[in-house]
Each structure stands twice: as C-alpha cells, then as structure tokens.
C-alpha cells in the first residue's frame, strides 16, 4: 500500500499540469451541475410552497337553502384531509369584492342579489396539498348542491408540468455534462498514462497485476475528484453569495419570500460524490484502455 501511495502522489506531482487540468475539468463540471441543481432546488421549493397553500372554493347553486349550506359545511369539515372550512355568504362575498374592487359596487347594486353565489372556503391539511390530494378532494365534492369547485391550482399544475419538463431536460443536460466530464478526465489521465507507458508496460512484464498498476491512478483520480469537487462547491458558494443573490436583488425577483437558497447538505454531499466518481471513473477508464492493450 505504501508503494502504491508513494507512486500515486509522485505521479500527481510529476504530472502536475495534467493533473491540474483534470481537477479543473471536474471543478467546472461540479460547478455546472451545482448551478443547475440549485436552480431546480429553488424552483421546486417555490412551487411546493405555492402548492401547499391551497384553498378550495366550492360554490353553491343559487337555490340551495342556507340551512342546507351549513349542513354541507359540517359534512365537508368531517372529511379527511380538511384543516378548516368557512362558509362565505353572498353578502360576505359582495363585501369582499367591493373591498378589493370598489368600482364594481354600482354594477353589483344594479344586478341585485343572486349574482355572487355562497361558497365554502376549504383549507386542506398540508399533507393533502398536493396535486393528487387536491384532485381527490375535488372528486369528493361532487355534490348536486355545488355548482362549481375551484381550487385555483390549474396553473400550478401547468407549472409543475413545465417543471417536470425542465427536470427531464436537466437530467439529460446533467448526464451530458457528466459524460463529457468523464471523457475529458479520462483523456487527461490517458495522457498521464501515455507519458508513463514504459513504466506501466514494464510493471506488467515484471509481474504487476492490473490492480497494482491501476491503484495509484485510482488514488490520483480520487484526489482530483475531491479537490475538483471541493473547488466546484466553493465556486458554487461564491456564485450563490456574490452573483445569484445580487442578481436577485438587482432584478427585484420576488418569486419567493425567502432569497434563493443554497443547496442543502445532502445535495452538496451528492455533488462531492459526483466529483469523486468523475475522477475515479475517468482514471479507471483511462488505465483500463491501456491495460486492455498491454501484453
């Protein structure tokens, strides 16, 4: 093991330029993946917060007596997944509308009563506030007394579809970045392997197993991976602090109440692992290509 470590660190030093290039490639890949992950993570968080703030409005038919409305309110309140139910009479609805849009008052007066239906304002428990939960709830509200059920979330669903498409594109883009990085790292390490081909050939001819030959390169790849992903993650932190947050302030982007968050620890660790895997896989593939042709 000592020989392997010595050879690995010696090679790192002797091929410093090539190793720096490989480390740089890993750092750039981790940074790109990190930026993408951060954007996705924040978009997910925003849509999740929007989606969890769901209010379902169930509008009564005009001919439903108020007593029946209250009976139904109790019935709905007893349903699973309901946090609160509030009955909104026509008068309350009018008052709310006039408060929000005072210019509608003359029109409403002219139209008389029966224009704005009474309704139930239903708040779901957070665990139900997802697409399927809302759909189940709307299905459960399929009652003859109710004219329409509106949960104002159709656009969130559309946004979710858009996000799913973005995620798919992200997976493809991330995959391509990872493949390109493995290819670049492998070729860079292949140059190191090529510069040391006499040594490696000789090692094989004097009885070194593939594992003994490969081990120092794997350690080199590991070191490059750790350093590269470390640099990439530090770059991501800098980018988040100095670029994204400032950009957000400058453009006054208020998509969410909180500023765009940095990646949580598990995502950051995943990036570190991706970087290490890039280094190790790159090294493995470069040496494997060489060994496959060695006598």
């Amino acid at each position, binding site marked *: 093991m*000592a*020989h392997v470590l010595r050879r690995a660190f010696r090679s790192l030093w*002797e091929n410093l330029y090539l190793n720096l290039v490989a480390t740089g490639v890993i750092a750039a890949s981790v940074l790109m993946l990190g930026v993408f992950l951060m954007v996705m993570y924040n978009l997910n968080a925003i849509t999740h917060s929007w989606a969890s703030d769901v209010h379902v409005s169930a509008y009564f038919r005009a001919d439903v007596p108020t007593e029946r409305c209250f009976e139904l309110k109790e019935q709905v309140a007893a349903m699973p997944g309901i946090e609160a139910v509030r009955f909104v009479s026509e008068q309350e609805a009018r008052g709310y509308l006039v408060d929000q849009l005072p210019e509608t008052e003359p029109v409403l007066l002219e139209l008389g009563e029966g224009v704005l239906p009474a309704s139930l304002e239903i708040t779901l428990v957070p665990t139900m506030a997802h697409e399927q939960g809302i759909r189940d709830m709307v299905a459960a509200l399929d009652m003859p007394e109710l004219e329409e059920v509106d949960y104002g979330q159709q656009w969130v669903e559309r946004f979710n579809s858009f996000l799913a498409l973005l995620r798919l594109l992200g997976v493809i883009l991330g995959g391509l970045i990872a493949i390109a990085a493995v290819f670049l790292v492998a070729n860079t390490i292949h140059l190191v392997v090529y510069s040391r081909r*006499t*040594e490696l*050939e*000789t*090692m*094989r*001819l*004097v*009885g*070194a*197993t*593939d594992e*003994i030959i490969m081990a120092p390169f794997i350690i080199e790849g590991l070191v490059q991976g750790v350093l590269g992903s470390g640099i990439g993650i530090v770059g991501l932190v800098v980018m988040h602090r100095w670029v994204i947050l400032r950009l957000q302030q400058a453009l006054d982007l208020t998509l969410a109440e909180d500023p765009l968050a940095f990646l949580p620890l598990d995502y950051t660790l995943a990036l570190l692992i991706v970087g290490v895997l890039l280094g190790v896989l790159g090294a493995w593939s470069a040496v494997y290509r060489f060994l496959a042709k060695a*006598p």
Partner: protein
Amino acid sequence: MIRLYHVSKTYGDHAALQDINLKVAKGEFCYITGPSGAGKTTLLKLLYAAEKPSEGKVLVGGVDVTSLSRRRRPFLRRNIGVIFQDFKLIPTRTVAENVSLSMEVLGYPRATIQRRVRAVLSIVGLKGRENNLPAQLSGGEQQRVAVARAIVNDPAVLLADEPTGNLDGGMAIEVIEILQAINLRGTTVMVATHDMALMDRFPYRALRFVQGKLVRERPCRL
C-alpha cells in the same frame, strides 16, 4: 522447467515459429541463436506470456502458459526474470528505483527492497550508481541495470533477449559471467543471442533457429 510441444506462431501470413518441440531442464543454461528474424524473441515472448502460440502448448515450471488467463499472467511472470533487448528502463527513475520495481509489485517492505537492491547492484558492478538516472549511464551499465532488475526477485527462470547486443567484448563477457553466476545458484537461464564468439567462450547448450524452425542443437560442452 520449460517444455514446448509442437509450438507454432504466425503473424498474418508470416510464420515466426514452426512446430517447435523443446525441453529445457531446471537449472540449465541454454542459448537460443540464429540470424535476425529466426524467431528468438518470439520464443522468449511465448515463455513470459507476452504472446500466445498459434498452435501447440508451452509449459513453464509446470504451468501451461497457453491457457493462462490474463489475470494469472502476472503470477507466472513473478517467477521469470526478463532482460529485454531494449532494456525497458524507466528514464525518470533512478537505477535503484528501476531495480526495485520488480520487488515493489510483489509488495516487499521498503527496507527489504533497499537491502536487496543494494546487494544486486553490487553483484552487477553498479555499486555507487544507485541514484543515477539511466541517461547518465553507458549502454553497458544500462544493460546491467536491466540484469539487476531481472534477478532481484531470485526468479526460477531468467530469459535474456540479446543481453550483450549493445556491449563491447569485455562488457559482454562480464554480463554472461553474471548470468553464469545466477545459473550456478539454480536458476534456469535462456539467452537469445547471435554472438558466436560468446557461445564458444561459454559453450553451453545452443539451439539454432532459422526462419522459425529449430534446425540444429549443440549440446553443452562444459
């Protein structure tokens, strides 16, 4: 120690070896001789499994090299020391590091390697040159480094491909004397050479190859 049964090796249309049957006993010293292109190097390559025969069977130390898997090859080579025609020294490593390579791959402790390398370099007359790079040595000295690397693990078989090809008469004799000394310790030695004068001076068994065929055999006259 070494057995070849009806061994042939072809590269495309060219037959490098044709129907070779051969037996070399344990502890024997033997030359493989013949003009360039006779198949000497190919024969050695078959013995250390750098090539596979197109036909026939090769046994080294009882191991069937022909059917040896890629993963088992290194373990065969650990018992075979090879002196390559082009030395195969690593230019960026010192003499001591080049020699210690054979021991490092076997995982010997550093202290053992250093002790053994010093001893072997002393045998081949390179004491005091441990820290030189190959480029700082003469052709003869480089040849001796290659010899030192081949014998440092005390192999059961030593194969030498033109070990005196780059040397003048005096140095060539020194190298053969080193191989002779190793042979006297029980190592089977096979030397590919076309140096007739050397073979006459050290008249061990000689196998003459011409165009891939074993055409004549001279018994040991010692």
